[in-house]
């Protein structure tokens, strides 16, 4: 069905290109931004639980955090927001935040130190999926009230289980789970001890520039201005995000002027917009990586020379220039470009001579059967077919095992794959988010069940590299920390069973009047409050 739909989308694209009749253009109001996006992954607005892309987009515009990114200068890193300043104790374990005056929730209540402590405690106590971002600092539902507490009228003290790099802690607090919730509103709507979780699923109580005015699952979400927002009033007084599944439909609506931004256009539709008057396409590098990984339980794939051969026998640039054009760029390290310490070296390029030479030196000169687990998404199947072709030239008998996302993930987590072709996006904007999963494996035994570590899923036992990764996360000298990550990545590229291939480029098409549309880069989500048109 997806194949046919893609073909149809292409047919429509061709028809659009071929049509000479101009599309009559309407326009959305100047103070309203209308976006077409796929929002069917949106489950909740509660920052303690929200962990999906569409949810993060809403959260970033609704909830403020202790520290946050400036959308107009993402490279500057975290900046003060609800916390006007912070201080690290001498032992490096306690951070004292001073809460700024003047921040007010959309409910009318002022943002206090009590709200800050409550929000962080609540996220740990509720123990939802993203809670690991906070619990990695040693917080538990039992101890969090002691570890995160109000110590003065406008101060909150956060005590960690051991010293960490301050940048690591603050980067984690910029994640969605760091959103500050109005304690009064949440507790007024508490049901059966859920700390307002059910209410916050579809309602918001934040101090950010917007509040959710209406939400229809799989249909639309509408944001209106937070009348109490302390900052400059955003130009877009209302933001509407409509769920439009089909790329071709998004394109048509954009060309008709019924939407301002189309966020899920296929490469064909993006190409189709070339030269269309009144529409522009803005490229932005995001944090998602596309990689393959080889299960080290499979004897042949545990041979370093076989891995080297497989890495050389990938047509990186060919794929990036053909079916992935505009959507992905070649990148071969586990930290996305723009992350602290990201390594931009690309040691591998498509070279069949080197690949064959490496294979000849391995214990498996004739290669052998390789099953690639790949989910039924078009881009991944295309990459899988390319690998099947080039690895086939090495003499490998490659079979694609296509399944739904859940099916392939099941096999991957159970360590039942040969090669897994997948994508990975950072959970929070700190290098440790990827380092801790690509380059750390605390216990490789089956019994450990460390499914959260990609290293474990691939049965890659790396005690020394794990130590290096753990050392990097506590290094307080930022430049030294960055260098440590670069070294780990270089080693990872050479020895790891991972072949990182691409980094995502997000192509957002929009009306040419739309300015300052920042999707969030590799580190955060979209920011509506700076947009003008």
């Amino acid at each position: 069905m997806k194949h046919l739909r893609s073909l149809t989308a292409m047919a429509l694209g061709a028809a659009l290109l071929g049509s000479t009749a101009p599309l009559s253009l309407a326009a959305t109001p100047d103070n309203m931004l209308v976006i077409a996006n796929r929002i069917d992954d949106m489950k909740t607005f509660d920052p303690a639980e929200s962990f999906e892309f569409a949810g993060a987009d809403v959260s970033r515009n609704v909830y403020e955090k202790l520290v946050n990114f400036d959308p107009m200068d993402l490279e500057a890193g975290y900046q003060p927001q609800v916390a006007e300043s912070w201080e690290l104790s001498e032992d490096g374990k306690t951070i004292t935040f001073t809460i700024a005056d003047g921040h007010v929730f959309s409910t009318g209540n002022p943002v206090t130190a009590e709200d800050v402590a409550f929000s962080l405690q609540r996220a740990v106590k509720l123990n939802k999926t993203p809670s690991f971002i906070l619990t990695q600092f040693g917080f538990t539902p039992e101890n969090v009230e002691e570890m995160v507490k109000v110590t003065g009228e406008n101060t909150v003290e956060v005590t960690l289980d051991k010293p960490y790099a301050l940048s690591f802690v603050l980067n984690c607090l910029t994640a969605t789970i760091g959103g500050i919730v109005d304690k009064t509103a949440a507790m007024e709507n508490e049901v059966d001890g859920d700390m307002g979780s059910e209410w916050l699923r579809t309602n918001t109580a934040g101090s950010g520039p917007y509040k959710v005015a209406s939400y229809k699952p799989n249909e639309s979400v509408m944001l209106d201005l937070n009348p109490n927002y302390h900052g400059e009033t955003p130009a877009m007084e209302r933001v509407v995000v409509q769920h439009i599944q089909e790329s071709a439909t998004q394109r048509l609506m954009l060309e008709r002027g019924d939407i301002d931004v189309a966020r899920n256009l296929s490469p064909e539709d993006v190409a189709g917009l070339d030269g269309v008057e009144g529409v522009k396409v803005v490229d932005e590098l995001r944090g998602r990586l596309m990689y393959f990984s080889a299960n080290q339980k499979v004897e042949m794939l545990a041979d370093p020379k076989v891995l080297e051969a497989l890495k050389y026998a990938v047509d990186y640039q060919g794929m990036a220039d053909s079916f992935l054009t505009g959507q992905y760029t070649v990148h071969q390290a586990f930290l996305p470009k723009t992350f602290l310490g990201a390594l931009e070296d690309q040691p591998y390029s498509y070279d069949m001579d080197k690949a064959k030479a490496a294979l000849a030196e391995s214990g498996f000169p004739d290669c052998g059967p390789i099953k690639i687990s790949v989910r039924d998404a078009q881009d991944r199947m295309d990459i899988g077919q390319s690998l099947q072709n080039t690895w086939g030239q090495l003499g490998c008998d490659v079979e694609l095992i296509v399944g739904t996302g859940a099916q392939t993930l099941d096999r991957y987590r159970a360590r039942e794959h040969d090669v897994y072709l997948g994508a990975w996006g950072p959970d929070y904007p700190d290098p440790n988010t990827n380092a801790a999963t690509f380059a750390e494996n605390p216990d490789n035994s089956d019994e450990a069940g460390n499914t959260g570590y990609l290293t474990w899923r691939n049965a890659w036992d790396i005690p020394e590299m794990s130590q290096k990764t753990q050392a990097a996360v506590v290094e307080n000298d930022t430049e030294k920390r960055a260098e440590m990550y670069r070294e780990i990545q270089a080693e990872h590229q050479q020895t790891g069973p991972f072949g990182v291939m691409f980094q995502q480029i997000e192509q957002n098409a929009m009306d040419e009047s739309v300015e300052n549309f920042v999707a969030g880069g590799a580190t955060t989500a979209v920011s509506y409050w700076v947009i003008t048109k």
Partner: protein
Amino acid sequence: MTSTETHAPRRQIMPKWLKRVLGTAATISVTLLGLLFVTFMIGRVMPIDPVLAVVGERASQAQYDAVYQELGLDKPLLVQFGIYITDVLQGDFGRSIRTGMPVSDDIARVFPATLELATLGTLLGVFLGVPLGVIAAVKRGSWIDQTARLVGLVGYSMPIFWLGLMGLLVFYGILGWVAGPGRVDIFYDGIVEPITGMLLLDSALRGEWDVFRNAFSHIVLPACLLGYFSLAYISRMTRSFMLEQLSSEYITTARVKGLSEWHVIWRHAFRNIRIQLITVIALSYANLLEGSVLTEIIFAWPGIGSYITVSLLANDMNAVLGGTVVIGVIFVGLNLFSDLLYRFFDPRSK
């Protein structure tokens, strides 16, 4: 020896109509129960982990285990099914993993959208398809017949999503005659307080004629598309039924008796195909109610077809089961309705 005992006529313990009602109710219950059982079991034995669908890829083992217990997956399958049925009987279909909302709320939101669309589509199909089929049969071999057959053939063979996208391109994109995807323009969204959930009906009932016009402009294209497919099926079946009747001896007799052609066609032949047509129309309606997934996706129409499909792909089994119950009830309900109409139109079945 002859028996002198005489049997008193057995007392009718239960009136015949009550027996029939109870029998029908039992059949419906067993059908729905069977449908639920099969869907439930398929969901449980599929090689997909429902816990992962809830907690996501990054969850810790502790979070995974907690949800595993919470979903009751540690219990035997039959016990799980028993618990599910008990909840369903209390109106609790569980919570959708994907939307985070109670499934009953989701269905209450998406079903009226599909009902509105499918009803309009079926009405178009019936009002155009039946006369076309009759005329095609009467004028067999004529250009009208050929046209009707071509319409039917195209309707059968053209992929609906292609036709939908082309319809959007031409009538929305180029000509601008109709509104785009979605049920209503964002400017009108939320103006009408829902009564039935069907926007056209609700806006009319509330007297919000601007919203009505806008909603009509949005629904007209997908409804025409579905109507076309419905028309193709209904006209083809009508033609076939009519041809059979028109070749019958009683029709020849009627013509010999000098009855007008109009009388022969509509009062004799058509009268006898009504029962078959009811089944065809009911089936077509039921198919549009559950099978218009692609139309819903292309037109960003938040209906039950796409709800079930997307839920199935996300392994959101509560949503799939809830949707299955609704679709099951629709099929059973339409069958029942057809039966009642049979009895009304055909005295023999009374």
